[in-house]
């Protein structure tokens, strides 16, 4: 389908919707020109493209509410979008829907150091929050690698993680409150500058709901005092198994590092070639362990970690002597994705999580699959929490390779679930993995989740093609089957 072709929506309808939205938003806040819509064709999940019917860029909660109310009344689908950095197609456009860009809501509204929180609009970038509070010695903890570009609104939708979530938690553990516009245009506030919401923990279920339940227009985040000291250690291992053992033993020794990242040999070599981080090239796996906090803790824990690494056959073990060196340790890891991009025309990034002790086993099996299907794989991952990011190398211009890469990716995720893990650790289900949901959930489980969706959006207008393989109608899901007299429970134990 070419740019601007609209399926299921006549051009006349589009003109009508555009005119209606222009009456509630600034003139330039409605984009219906096919060329101008091109940036909205895809997010960072680039293998699928679809231009939306049009894009609307509201600049206030009232405008978001007006747009959603209109769309609700006219049964028009809506796809919310932050910076478009989703790796699972979370803001993948719909030909018969509008894409609601929240980028104009980009102000930091309030910083409250005494109560250790900040109130920001959803279009503020993740790093923008930390930058806003940096001068006072605070930061916002979750740090997805796209933090320069990705927005807090998108982080809320996807429950984004990052390198430091091992110790400081994911987005969900760092959000205190939300202002949310429901698909009907109703505005609700949940939580606030205090801990725990009254009533059901709707905050907890909204974070990570992938934009299917409501549109976030304001976020209250926790901010933390920056740790006084940060130090990293670079440990090289002769085998992946040794590295895996070391990770398990560190956690087993009661140490929760701020971050614990692993790269396999292919990733190490690619990264070293790309940024010259000074990584040892003869190791099968490289581990970066970062500790933060009081100096006494760091010294003590690194002594323990060094001993653990040595008994896990580490061949090299370097401690950063200053911040420059620490940043150099990280430079390779942070550049790993672009470095891998230089190895092949395309790569496909997976995101399964597994129980840590299955690490070596799973990596070996991924290697076997790679040999079988003929596509190379590079592993860069958050070892501390078992979140794998296998990068499958392929060339989309070769016939059949994309399909082969997708099949390989699916097999990796199946393996993750088989060993007790999950389909996605931090990138979301989106359009990418929705058809794999039955690997983890049976129909009863999925029906329950869809019923919750119905409680927020009874007509399935909000981001409707994501997460669920087969979104059932709410009327069907709401039916209650009564089997009078069929079940007896007289003989069950009582007390």
């Amino acid at each position, binding site marked *: 389908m070419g740019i601007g072709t609209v399926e299921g929506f006549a051009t006349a309808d589009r003109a009508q919707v555009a005119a209606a939205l222009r009456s509630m938003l600034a003139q330039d806040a409605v984009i219906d020109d096919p060329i101008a819509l091109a940036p909205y064709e895809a997010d960072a999940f680039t293998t699928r493209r679809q231009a939306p019917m049009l894009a609307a860029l509201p600049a206030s909660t009232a405008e978001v509410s007006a747009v959603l109310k209109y769309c609700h009344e006219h049964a028009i689908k809506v796809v919310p979008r932050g910076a478009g950095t989703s790796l699972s197609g979370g803001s993948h456009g719909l030909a018969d829907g509008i894409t609601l860009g929240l980028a104009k809501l980009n102000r930091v509204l309030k910083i409250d150091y*005494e*109560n250790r929180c900040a109130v920001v609009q959803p279009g503020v970038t993740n790093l923008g929050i930390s930058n806003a509070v940096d001068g006072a010695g605070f930061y916002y903890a979750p740090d997805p690698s796209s933090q320069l570009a990705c927005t807090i609104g998108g982080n809320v939708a996807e*429950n984004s993680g990052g390198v430091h*979530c091992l110790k400081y*938690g*994911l987005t969900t*553990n760092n959000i205190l409150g939300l202002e949310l516009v429901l698909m*009907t245009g109703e505005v*609700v506030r949940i939580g*606030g*500058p*205090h*801990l*725990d919401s*009254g*009533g*059901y*923990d*709707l905050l*907890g*279920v909204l*974070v*990570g*709901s992938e934009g299917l339940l409501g549109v976030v227009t304001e976020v209250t985040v926790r901010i933390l005092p920056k*740790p006084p000291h940060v130090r990293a250690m670079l440990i090289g291992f002769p085998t992946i198994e040794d590295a895996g053992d070391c990770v398990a033993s560190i*956690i*087993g020794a*009661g140490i*929760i590092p701020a971050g614990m990242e692993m790269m396999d040999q292919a990733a190490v070599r690619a990264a070293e070639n790309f940024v010259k981080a000074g990584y040892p090239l003869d190791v099968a796996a490289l581990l970066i362990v970062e500790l933060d*906090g*009081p100096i006494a803790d760091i010294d003590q824990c690194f002594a323990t970690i060094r001993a653990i690494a040595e008994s896990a056959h580490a061949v090299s073990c370097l401690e950063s002597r200053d911040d420059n060196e620490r940043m150099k340790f990280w430079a390779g890891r942070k550049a790993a994705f672009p470095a891998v991009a230089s190895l092949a025309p395309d790569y496909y990034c997976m995101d399964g*999580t*597994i129980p840590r*002790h299955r690490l070596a086993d799973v990596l070996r099996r991924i290697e076997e699959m790679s040999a079988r299907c003929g596509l190379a794989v590079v592993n860069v991952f958050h070892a501390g929490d*078992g979140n794998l990011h296998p990068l499958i190398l392929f060339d989309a211009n070769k016939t059949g390779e994309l399909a082969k890469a997708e099949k390989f990716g699916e097999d990796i995720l199946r393996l993750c679930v088989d060993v007790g*893990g*999950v*389909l996605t*650790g931090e990138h*979301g289900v989106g359009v990418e993995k929705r058809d794999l*949901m039955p690997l*983890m*959930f049976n129909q*009863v*489980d*999925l029906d*329950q989740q869809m019923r*919750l969706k*119905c*409680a*927020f959006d009874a007509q399935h207008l909000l981001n409707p093609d994501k997460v669920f393989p087969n979104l059932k109608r709410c009327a069907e899901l*709401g039916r209650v089957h009564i*089997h009078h007299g*069929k*079940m*007896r*429970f007289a003989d*069950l*134990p*009582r007390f």
Partner: protein
Amino acid sequence: MARFLPQCVAELAEIVAAAADEQSPLAVCGSETKRNIGRTCAIADVLSTAAIRGIKLYEPEELVLTVYSGTPLGEIEAALAQRDQHLAFEPPRFHRLLGTEGPTSIGGVVATGLSGPRRMTAGAVRDHVLGFQAVNGRGELIKAGGRVVKNVTGYDLSKLMAGSFGTLAVLSEITLKVLPRPARVQTLVAQGVGAREGVSLLSRALGGPFVASGAAWLPPQLAGNGDSLAAIRLEGTAESVAARGLALRTALSAFSGTLDHDESCALWQSVGEVEGLADMAGAVWRISVPPMSGPDILEAVPGATGFLDWGGGLVWLLVPETGDCAAERIRAAVAKVGGHATLFRASAEMRRTIPVFQPLEGPLAALTRRVKESFDPLHILNPGRMYPDF
């Protein structure tokens, strides 16, 4: 009137399905140590998960624990302690405050969503539930989440379960994140400081690099030696605790007193379990507000006695058990600063007439009801426990 004590998950599901079939409500509970929290509601049939118990999986290196919902908290804590681990959200027992006894079940801990002093920095119950299995109001066995820390597959229904007081589904199995238990505890105290000065000190301590895991203020009548105090808890290895204590005292000289390990454990247990107010007559409110607003809430009711946890953000307030137990006054004060107030301890009669949980308004009330009905369309699970009409 029946009391059901299913022995396995299949029996549990059958009982709920039968109740749904007959549209006959169930009073859902674990071991009933927190049965007096919530609205008073008359439900004839009781369903307890107390017999569905045991540790199903505990992998210390993975920091993960899966238990059946009826498992006593004490059994879990003992198993974790053997491997120097714990539940970091510090689940309090409210036996003395609520006048109950016996073991507390983990299902009840999750269903009530109540966390201790460490909640401020380590997160609440909800932050430690990785996954669960439960029976919804249709009698269907549902599961969500998983056993790994990092998981965004599907909606995070685990969070919704925490604090839903058994009104959405009956928990049968819970997977929790567990963490290393700190070896040493030390508490630094500033004595003779009023609530505002105290909260300001706590805020400065929490905003600094000291990694505190507890921050409370107690008035003279609740502090041991008759002088009000602000207290900061430091946990970790002995060396770390000593170093941080020194740094904190250097930065904030008001924290001149020290409580050792055992004294600290006693103090923070007493704070978390509200022991100071337990033996005093009156109704007790649990109020969550922005930390710096804690003192405003303490002053909202003349003559009330209260103390502050979570750096000022959690107010425990004892008021005379008369009239509306100061509900209107307290909720007006909370509305000014943002937060919510729960009538935590009061007579059955009071809890019948005064909204126990923060009343919901407008679209949020309607949304909450729809969420309830998405799990329990027939209103058979603990109807009325949280809100009068569902």
